[in-house]
């Protein structure tokens, strides 16, 4: 799993690639915690290069969504496709997270 964070004014884009699962999700958690700690209000998570996700990976993204929403911000997921998109559809989360999918 790799990630890139890019800040542009109030907007933050977080690009995640590779595998986000029970092994790698703990590595991403501090990055997401930092976004919340900084009260970033407009966050786009780009998952176009994400190859595989499991329930642990979904859990950290849902946690981010809830925490940002709690202080009035928004999280958009974009680029979901293939296996990650199938997981989000199964969990009916594709309707919760707005954003353009691949």
């Amino acid at each position, binding site marked *: 799993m790799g990630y890139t964070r890019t800040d542009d004014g109030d907007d933050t884009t977080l690009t995640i690639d590779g595998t986000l699962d029970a*092994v790698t999700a703990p590595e991403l958690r501090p990055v997401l915690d930092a976004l919340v700690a900084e009260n970033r209000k407009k966050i786009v998570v780009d998952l176009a290069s994400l190859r*595989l996700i*499991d*329930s642990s990976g979904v*859990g950290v993204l849902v946690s981010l969504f809830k925490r940002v929403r709690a202080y009035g911000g928004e999280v958009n997921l974009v680029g979901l496709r293939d*296996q990650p998109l199938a997981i989000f559809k*199964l*969990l009916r*989360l594709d309707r919760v997270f707005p954003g353009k999918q691949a």
Partner: protein
Amino acid sequence: MSSSDRILLSVPGALEFRDVAVRVVGAACKLLGPRGGSSPDLAEREPSARDPNPGAEHAAVHAGAELVDPFSMAVLSAFSEAFNNLALHGYRGMPRGTIDVEVRSEGTRHEGALYIRLTDTGRVFDPSQYVEPPDELPERGMGLFIMRGFLDELRYEAGPPNVLTLVKRW
């Protein structure tokens, strides 16, 4: 390929060994699943007749292309969750045991099933005791829901050893 063909793997019951298990199951989906086929007519043909470019197939498995194929995608998603459960919960606080994986298939190229048996000696985890679907915004407890959603059947026999069988039909 025949219905007696099996792929066996034994790995320590810890998350760091999941990737190798996922890769093997991904390759097994190709070899034993609907595209690999297990009908006698296919088995009797030369490999070159079944697949005009076997090298490309081999490369596709290693490139992770199996995650685009719906059958493999479903199987690997469910298998990943099953392995997580055993490694994270089954062996938690216990001496690390193994997770033995057996993959086999039955049927023809057009109709059949893939069976994946995971055998462990950890705590009993009976999927039938956990049936609730996730709420609108779940952060945990989704693994079993994902397994049920992607599989046609989920069987559990409490041990020791415990045996969890994932069944995916085509």
